[in-house]
């Protein structure tokens, strides 16, 4: 690096967890090819199973599924986000404390299960284009339609919401940058209460700016939709499950079965 970087280098957020979320890995893979609905269903099933049968079997099998998915999606190590030092330190302190509290096993179990579920979610985000999600929701929500629920407007809301999120990301970035360029206020009130007051005011400033921009954008979206004939009717397309989807469902079913059976069969200490 050069002299410029040496002086007042701000925190590099380049590989922080915030910057790797919902970013499609820029290549095709078996996991990319799956129907978005398949990935959402399997993810939900695995989350539910892990919550009902949390234990070493779940932790082990989920870890295997995460690794297998990562290999199938050709995820390189360089994609793995850097974990914030505060998080790492907190987790380490927790581990040490639970060790002395005679419960390191419980601690590790719950940590491993939460981490694998988070990782699975991130993997789905990395391999699913946002625009594929809304059509999948239309198909998945088709049964709810019979109950009279307004599935169509939910799906349209999802589609519009996902179109907006990348723009919002940019806006948050600009907002913070504009803030950084401004000189800081001299603190108003004395002591902690004054500081708290300043912070609250600052937050409300930022939130108002975001909301003001969003409300204008919302009204433009509304007009744009009206000009194209109003809220569109999204129809579920024909469901075409490819071999990859069938295999994913099979693996999920086998994994689920294995977790359930192992948790029931294994002696109590191994389950929970």
């Amino acid at each position: 690096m050069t002299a410029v970087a040496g002086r007042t280098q701000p925190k590099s957020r380049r590989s922080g967890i915030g910057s790797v979320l919902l970013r499609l890995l820029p290549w095709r893979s078996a996991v990319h090819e799956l129907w978005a609905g398949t990935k959402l269903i399997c993810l939900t099933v695995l989350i539910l199973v892990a919550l009902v049968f949390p234990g070493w079997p779940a932790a082990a099998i989920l870890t295997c599924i995460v690794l297998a998915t990562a290999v199938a999606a050709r995820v390189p190590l360089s994609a793995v986000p850097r974990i914030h030092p505060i998080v790492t330190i907190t987790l380490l302190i927790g581990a040490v404390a639970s060790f002395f509290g005679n419960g390191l096993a419980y601690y590790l179990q719950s940590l491993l299960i939460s981490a694998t579920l988070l990782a699975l979610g991130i993997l789905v985000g990395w391999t699913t284009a946002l625009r594929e999600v809304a059509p999948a929701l239309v198909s998945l929500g088709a049964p709810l339609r019979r109950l009279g629920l307004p599935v169509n407007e939910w799906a349209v809301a999802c589609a519009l919401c996902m179109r907006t999120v990348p723009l919002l990301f940019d806006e948050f970035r600009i907002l913070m940058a504009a803030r950084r360029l401004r000189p800081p206020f001299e603190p108003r009130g004395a002591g902690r209460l004054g500081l708290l007051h300043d912070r609250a005011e600052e937050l409300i400033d930022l939130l108002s700016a975001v909301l003001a921009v969003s409300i204008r954008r919302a009204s433009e979206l509304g007009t744009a939709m009206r000009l194209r004939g109003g809220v569109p009717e999204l129809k579920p397309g024909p469901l075409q499950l490819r071999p990859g989807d069938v295999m994913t469902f099979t693996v999920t079913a086998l994994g689920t079965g294995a977790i359930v059976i192992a948790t029931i069969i294994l002696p109590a200490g191994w389950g929970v």
Partner: protein
Amino acid sequence: MQRTPTRRVLDSPVDEISGGRPLTSSELGTAAVLAGVAALLVAVGSLVPHVGAIGMLATIPLAVIGQRHRARAVVAAAVAGCTVAFLVAGISSAVALIVWAVVGGLVGSTVRRGRGAKTIIGVSLLAGPVFGLAAVSILLVFSAARDLAFASVAATVHGVTVFLHSLGLVSVASFIDAALAVTLASWWLVILVGALIGTPLVMLLVWRILSTVLRRLDWIVVDDPFFDITPTESGEPIADPLLIELSGVEFRYAGAAENALRGLDLVLDRPEFIVVSGRNGSGKSTLMRLLAGASATRGEIRRNRPVALGAPGGTAIIMQRPESQILGMTVAEDVRWGVRSDASIDIEATLSDVGLAGMRDRPTSSLSGGQLQRLALAAALVRRPMLLISDESTAMVDAAGRCELIDVLRHLPESNITVIHVTHSDDEVLYADRHIRLADGRIIFDERQPGMPRENTRIPKAGWNGNPALRDPDARPLLALENVSHTYDAGTPWQQRTLHRVSVELHEAEGLLITGENGGGKSTIAWIMAGLIIPTDGRILLDGEPVTAVRGSVAMAFQHPRLQLQRPTVREDILAASGRRGSGHANDIFVRDALSAVGLPPELAARSIDALSGGQMRRVALAGLIASRPRALILDEPFAGLDRESRRQLAELLARLRDQRRLAIVLISHDLDETDIVCSRTVRLADGVLS
């Protein structure tokens, strides 16, 4: 200045939730956008634990939906936000979003009914037990996960007490142990009591914040010119040309003292390129509203086909602001938006008709203003309209973009489409088959003209050459970029080389234009010059010092001024931009001087930020920046969203600032009109390389 009250519709509580009417376009738009804000806040809160409290702010956007629309819109927002939060940050964020949607929805809907703190407390006393019971039942269902979490927490806390024991703090340790044991044993009671007490506190806090935020947002006047037009079916397509006859039509806006249109007679009987011109307030927009389906106050409008706004074979409209008409994330998706999935459409052919051939998979965010307008046109054409209304669609596009747009528009009548193009610009009139001029709500001129040869459209470029400021050629440059390269996300799969060995120098009182395609690195170079991004390689020196060490000396005006104006009023914002605040005579003078430097009257100081027009916002943002006495000023797309007159005024203002304050000015723009007044030099960025 007066406040415009927001239109609010109150429904019965049953209709609120179970629905009745489906959501309208504007309800759905609000729900979707604000759900996105909420989802991002929740995700940030859950992924960055030390700012976890930010997640709670997600209640505010959701409460704003509840304050503006029916509960049905809040439900749609909850579903959309929950899905996005789930994809971004997992199951816990999704659950949190639903909780915040209920809290925000209740508070917002209470505010909409004009009730205050008492009702909030009443509602929260009812909601508290419900929340508590819901949480307890979820933990009962997932008992194994609960046991595991409790065991893990117990072990961690016990570890801490063991440590306290060893320090000799026996009584503290045993108290903690006992408290934990009781808490875990009667967890359900703890949750219920917590919900009973916590819910009112949280809801009151949300209500306080919401009221503060709403006081600012109330100033926003959203302009939705077509809100009262009900959609109609298009009916059977017919081969006959469109026929519309207006006779003796008058129109008066609700609450207006005078008619906007006074006795208008007009016959549209053949597909042709009609250009409607006239000053602001001459009735052009009102005429377009009538053609788009609004009813006249008096007089008769006869048509041989229904209006069918946005429907196949009906009426299509393209409007002024390019980016606001786009609904899809990619070009093809946008063209297809809202077209029935069983309709056969040829996207590729439509795109090539408007000159966007081969761009179907481009993200819409990478298109320039002119390209976006042609995309909007493609989305209109794919509906095979009989009538196309272009409502000042060329006003915010640069000269090259204007040419291309007019060129497409004037050839559409050959495909049996009647085109009505509203414009301020006289040079566009030359290409009309028929020219209609309005003044004071009447047609003062209506003639068919031979038209220009069909071949090529040429619109003369406006602008004059300013005198480039004189400077000493040997002087040291004020701002120097030396071999700057930048790669985003270096070392990850998303790595993207944006700049490659770029060197630029800029002197005092000099203007530099950086131009190039969107996505070519223009914004990155601006952020680097302002010290906001540290490039992966190279140096940026301001007067010989690294720019990051003197951040703030290079001011930056972002494309969207509202994001830069963060205080409630003009006065407070201009002061904040220089780190000042408070009342006092010195500050009064400071604000007055800042406003006059950008040509704004001092009365504006008290104005709420959201009561400003787009052009005023840009100027106020500039006033704040200039008042902080920067050495250089960078403007990212300063002309976006301005019409030609405002553009020229802004350019002249910048040229004056450059000369009077010896400011170095960098314009980042893909729009070349008027820039020569400010900039004596132009560089072009393409694929991260300067030329």
